[in-house]
């Protein structure tokens, strides 16, 4: 039986007291324990940023990579060994600034990753610049006149790119967050979970108190159909006094990328021995050029 304690690492988090990353960290561990995935059966891939240190604080296979490149590295891991459940944990700068192109391509590829974005809507580790999900008008060290840009809408973008699982949760509701990750772990293709993650030091605007009265759970409405893409788009555009969380969209009818790769029909690549070509294979190769 896998328990949360199996994921305990000797390294203590450097996150600020009250940081939304604690809840995400706990939810990841709880979700993995709940579905029975042991530390050696998963790979946590991250980029660079406060949240991307999560694998360092977790006893599980992990890889802390480059800013913005979490998803392609994770894609390589997944294709090399789809026996591992691969989760990405990275921030909004990582996922939606430098890595936005990769996110869209991962969505249309439908690669089997659980992509958790620690969306604090600010750059924390570099001490307070505005981020791609900061509101327009956001004043920060690099936007002294207020940000001129509109924020990225990751839910709508992922839907447009063909993502088969699109969800949002937040650090103020550990149970919902855990349940959302559990559900994503059961999904066969690419699963995006955008997580509102209050940054208690550099983003006083998007605090726990900001989100708590505003968020509502899509799944509280029994008539909400997660397979209705147009309905998901409509909810993706909802913003203001009421902000939806939960699963916006989920369909299981499209195979994951790795399910379609001929070389992977025989199982994961990584555990296979690397052997020399057999004589008849050599012969066939040489004949191509005779």
């Amino acid at each position, binding site marked *: 039986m896998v328990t949360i304690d199996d994921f305990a690492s000797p390294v203590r988090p450097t996150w600020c007291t009250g940081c939304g990353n604690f809840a995400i960290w706990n939810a990841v561990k709880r979700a993995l324990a709940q579905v029975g995935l042991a530390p050696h059966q998963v790979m946590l891939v991250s980029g660079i940023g406060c949240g991307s240190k999560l694998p360092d604080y977790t006893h599980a296979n992990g890889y802390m*990579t480059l800013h913005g490149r979490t998803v392609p590295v994770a894609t390589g*891991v997944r294709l090399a060994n789809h026996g591992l459940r691969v989760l990405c944990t990275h921030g909004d700068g990582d996922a939606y600034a430098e890595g936005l192109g990769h996110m869209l391509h991962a969505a249309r590829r439908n690669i089997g990753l659980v992509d958790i974005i620690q969306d604090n809507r600010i750059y924390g580790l570099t001490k307070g610049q505005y981020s791609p999900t900061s509101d327009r008008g956001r004043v920060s060290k690099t936007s002294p006149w207020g940000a001129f840009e509109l924020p990225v809408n990751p839910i709508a973008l992922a839907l447009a790119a063909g993502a088969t699982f699109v969800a949002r949760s937040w650090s103020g509701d550990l149970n919902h967050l855990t349940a959302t990750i559990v559900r994503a772990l059961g999904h066969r293709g690419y699963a995006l979970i955008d997580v509102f993650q209050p940054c208690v030091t550099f983003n006083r605007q998007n605090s726990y108190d900001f989100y708590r009265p505003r968020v509502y759970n899509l799944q509280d409405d029994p008539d909400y159909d997660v397979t209705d893409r147009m309905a998901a788009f409509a909810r993706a555009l909802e913003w203001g006094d009421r902000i939806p969380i939960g699963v916006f969209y989920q369909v299981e009818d499209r195979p994951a990328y790795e399910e379609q790769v001929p070389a992977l029909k025989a199982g994961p690549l990584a555990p296979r021995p690397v052997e020399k070509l057999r004589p008849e294979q050599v012969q066939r190769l040489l004949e191509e050029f005779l």
Partner: protein
Amino acid sequence: MQTVDDLIIRIGGEAGMGLESSGVGFAQALVRGGLHVFGLPDYHSRIRGGHNFFSVRIARRPLYSHTEPVHLLLALDPETVRRHIGAVVPGGAVVYDEKDGLPDIPRRTDVGYFSIPLAKLAEEAGGSAIMRNTLVFAVAAGLIGFDPTYIESVARDNFARKGPAVVDANLRVIQAGVEASRPFQADFPFRMEAVPDAPRRLLLNGNQAFAMGALAGGCRFVSGYPMTPGSPVLEWMAAHAAEYGVVTLQVEDEIAALCMAIGAGYAGVRAMAPTSGGGFSLMVEALGLAGMTEVPVVVYEAQRPGPSTGLATRTEQGDLLFVLHASQGEFPRIILAPGTVEQAFEAGWRAFNFAERYQCPVIVLSDHYLATSVRDVVPEDLNLDAVVIDRGELLTEADLDRLEGEYRRHAFTESGISPRAIPGHPKAVYASSSDEHDEYGHIYEDAENRRRMQEKRMRKLETARSEMRLPTAYGAADPDLTFIAWGSTYGPMREAVDRLNGQGVRARMLHFTDIWPVPQDVEKLLVGETIAVENNYSGQFADLLRMATGHTVSRRILKWDGRPLSPEYITHHVSRFT
């Protein structure tokens, strides 16, 4: 009539006329007919129009290079005559299409002009004027006295999957071409007849040889983004992916390409990302990730002239110092630069052994010339039996079962190499980091740890140095002139050495395939007058040698017009200072 040592046939026309494919088919026929060939495509970065040509040099001895003169020019448009008539040797000939004529092109008196209704004959015999590329090669075969049955055998194989009607049409076109050559045979003096019962030989280019070597070496993951001239490696691998169990994918950009290959390498699969210089520029940050986290990965970089887009379909050796220094900070990397089809094949599997043995990125530096020119080799030259798969200090399942204590992915060792566990074993759960880390992989900023960890990583380079091959020596044992070559200049340089020795100049080539780390004791070979010969503006390898060994070359013969070095170009420059 004379049988010549060398005979060069050049076909020219517009992009879209199928020059290269028909040229390679013709070269294949020549090889089946027991002759040696070197085929060089020259094309523009466009799909239609412009001026492309393909030259095939033919001989009865092995060839390593193209050369500049032309004996027979096959002109599918008047532009070909305009551009290449100057290269035709006295006594040589031009075959052109009667319908095109030769408007406003001054005629040479020492060259034959053979007007043949190429398009018309192709249409009559095969049903399509586009088949005149096949027809004109049959004309060429007729003129040089080469048995056309070899062309027919290639046509049978190449068109078999299109059905018997297409095969028959091609055979009729070939027959028509041979017939059309008859009136001119007496006017063309050069002969190159087939050598019956010659051993079977392969015809392939550097890209294909490298890809085959990589496959034989256990490469099972290839991610790339299309870019000339590197992407044919991805295409070749994709064509073989299902049969040999290779994951290949075309991705959104070269950043993703290398990051995915690194992810696959981290997970334990032999992985590579093929590209060209522009794509490599995007891979630079990821290269450092592989260096820092000690991930085996191979990058195949087929150079073309830069900077920026440069000359997309041409050649240069301008990226050497770039790939040597690419990415911030200092970390070990290994650079190989094959010069021939055989060496490209070998580099294919050696690269993966180096990558796993030293747990670092390996860059195989090719270029457009090596990547795209075709040469014949005997099957034994691509020695698949000699392929070694050495995964280095990789812990087996049984090793891991016996593991005591927490696994240290980046353990300090004397060689700098830390025994590697593939993620997935319950006793070797670890997370590595692009941040500086401790032996376990945990982020750690301690100064002493940083010092030791950096020393450990860099020590791998010193361990690797002893394995790097010294340059291949070719030519006079006691030379007056020592030429220093690397990568694709092998062929032109080798032939230049032959020519110089024939003229009484004692010349020797030292050709490097193992570029970095610079092989141990190489300075002992660098004595006397040395001349660096490079396909770039500044002589980058000469600079690298000076940096690594203190040896200063005496002279540099360089070329940076986007075209390959030729034996003539080298000997011409040598004659200016001897």
